């Protein structure tokens, strides 16, 4: 391994990257685009669901409750109904996705709820009913939140209320941004390295390089190292934008967050290097990269809650680096955990990196065949 040859490859790589405007734009553009998309558009917390109110009690307290729920903005209370038949037809026509029903004995139910002992709470009849268009999953999810909404005058016992400790304002961005760091790094690191390495072979540069003293590992390392810098740049872009647009906090140590990112970048680059040894063309490299990318996004807990997945899916998820980085990033950013608290995740990322590189070593050769 010669430092001069390694530097020569890095300098060459940076020069090529500077001329490749599209890639360069993607390096900064992808994080920004995704952050805005996931932060704003793909908001799992649906707000402004069209709804109707059927207030059969019509007391001062029930009206208070309706006003309170209306001001939560989760439901957009467009219709005041007088009978259940109206509700049925509105739901069926799709004019509303939910209906808030206040039964005639609302006051009585409220009273009994308050007087029940803590351990028999669930046996009481709940004072409010929310009828939901079950065909829309996102509406269902929002309704679940509403069910735990604290009602005025209802001495809500702690056993019922859902406590959202780390994200009290229910901001999706807060959960999304730490995960997004991982998703964006996965996309760019794995794909760009795999493509960059295969490009040399596809364009025929490799045939010439093999007959020079440059070793395959100097070439690989020289091509991969610039991406470490690029990865850290992307982390910075996401953190800054997350801060500016969504006020995402970093409650733990910034240095440790960068440390965790660096480790994840290494794991992703190792995966990229391994993929490059499988693919013959840049297009193949891209396909394989996407193939590894999908399960990571779907199973890591970024898209769907990890705890809700079947056991088999959880086992697969444990093999994916993004799963572990997600825990690291959320831990450090939202729960101010330290790297030491999260050592199993670090170990997992290290093992993954070493494994991928070892696999790649057995496949890299200095021959064409």
């Amino acid at each position, binding site marked *: 391994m010669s430092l001069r*040859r390694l530097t*020569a490859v890095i300098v060459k790589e940076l020069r090529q990257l500077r001329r490749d405007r599209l890639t360069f734009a993607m390096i900064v553009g992808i994080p920004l685009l995704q952050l805005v998309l996931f932060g704003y558009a793909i908001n799992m917390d649906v707000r402004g669901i069209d709804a109707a109110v059927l207030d059969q009690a019509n007391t001062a307290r029930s009206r208070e409750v309706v006003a309170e729920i209306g001001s939560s903005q989760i439901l957009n209370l467009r219709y005041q109904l007088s009978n259940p038949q109206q509700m049925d037809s509105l739901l069926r026509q799709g004019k509303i996705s939910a209906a808030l029903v206040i039964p005639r004995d609302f006051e009585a139910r409220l009273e009994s709820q308050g007087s029940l002992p803590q351990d028999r709470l669930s046996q009481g009849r709940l004072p409010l009913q929310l009828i939901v268009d079950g065909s829309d999953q996102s509406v269902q999810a929002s309704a679940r939140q509403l069910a735990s909404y604290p009602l005025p005058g209802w001495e809500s016992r702690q056993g019922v209320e859902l406590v959202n400790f780390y994200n009290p304002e229910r901001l999706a961005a807060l959960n999304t941004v730490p995960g997004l760091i991982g998703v964006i790094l996965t996309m760019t690191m794995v794909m760009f390295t795999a493509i960059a390495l295969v490009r040399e072979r596809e*364009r*025929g540069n490799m045939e*010439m390089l093999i007959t020079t*003293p440059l070793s395959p590992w100097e070439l690989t390392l020289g091509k991969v190292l610039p991406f470490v810098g690029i990865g850290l740049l992307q982390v910075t872009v996401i953190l800054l934008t997350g801060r500016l647009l969504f006020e995402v906090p970093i409650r733990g140590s910034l240095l440790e967050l960068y440390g965790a990112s660096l480790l994840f970048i290494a794991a992703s680059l190792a995966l990229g290097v391994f993929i490059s040894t499988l693919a013959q063309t840049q297009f193949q490299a891209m396909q394989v990269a996407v193939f590894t990318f999908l399960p990571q996004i779907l199973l890591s807990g970024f898209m769907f809650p990890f705890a809700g997945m079947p056991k088999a899916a959880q086992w697969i998820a444990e093999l994916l680096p993004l799963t572990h980085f997600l825990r690291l990033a959320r831990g450090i950013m939202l729960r101010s955990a330290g790297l030491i608290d999260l050592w199993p995740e670090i170990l997992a990322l290290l093992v993954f990196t070493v494994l991928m590189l070892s696999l790649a070593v057995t496949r890299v050769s200095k021959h064409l*065949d």
Partner: protein
Amino acid sequence: MPGTDVVIQASGLTKRFGQLTAVDNLNLRVRRAEVFGFLGPNGSGKSTTIRMLCGLLLPSAGEIEVFGYQIPRDAEALKRRIGYMTQKFSLYDDLSVVENLGFLATVQGLDRGAARKRIAELLERYWLGDQRQQLAGTLSGGQRQRLALAGAVLHKPDLLLLDEPTSAVDPQSRREFWESLFELADAGTTLLVSTHYMDEAERCTRLGILDNGRLVADGSPRALLDALPGQPLLIECAQPRQAKHALRDCSEVLAMAQIGLALRVLVASEDARGPIEQRLRDAHIDAQIKSTEANLEDVFVSVTRQPVQAQR
């Protein structure tokens, strides 16, 4: 240990890709400062042989020794002494001329000062001074070829392997390119060039003709011409294709090739004239038969029997 003058010594060299035998039991000896030409049609095994000689491909069987190094075992040590110019342009399209050469200079281990001097020298020798800041991808075919040559000789290799270096270049550039090659040979560099151009083959000091992976002729162009079994006749007529058809299974004809409105026929001896005239008369073809000077085309055709085979 072969004589010190021998640069490449290969024996029984064979390369198989699955069912296909690309190079078949090839024996080769190239001496110092020779311009050794590999002549052969596409797919005859030229590139594969060159790639095995510089350690890029592992032979399926056979021995290779270059500068006394066992290949592929000592391929790493050999790398500092050889230059390889690939068939396809293999420098970086998105780097400038100077950046490409600078990268190669560092990779080849030249220090900064030596690299600068050597690059300036090469830019001048290969007329690339005006294009020094131009991206390699925007150069003309001839310029790219000269840049690739500059890259291949940057570290002053003792042996230069060139795989069809002029296949994408106009005739004027080809002539200039060959001038550059002779300059290198004069300076003591051994050259091994593959080509399918006859005029380029004539310029080589020695020639190896490859056919279906086998070396079917090996010698100086003069020696190959002298060893030609028989002599060529030129049959001029209005219908060369019909003439060719008429002579198709004439036993005296060793090989045939149509050149414009003439048919070049290789015959064992002058005595074949009579039977050929007879056959053409029978076919009602009015033709003139002349003796002509043998050239490498005849040698190539006679050793590969390509055109005759193609007719069957």
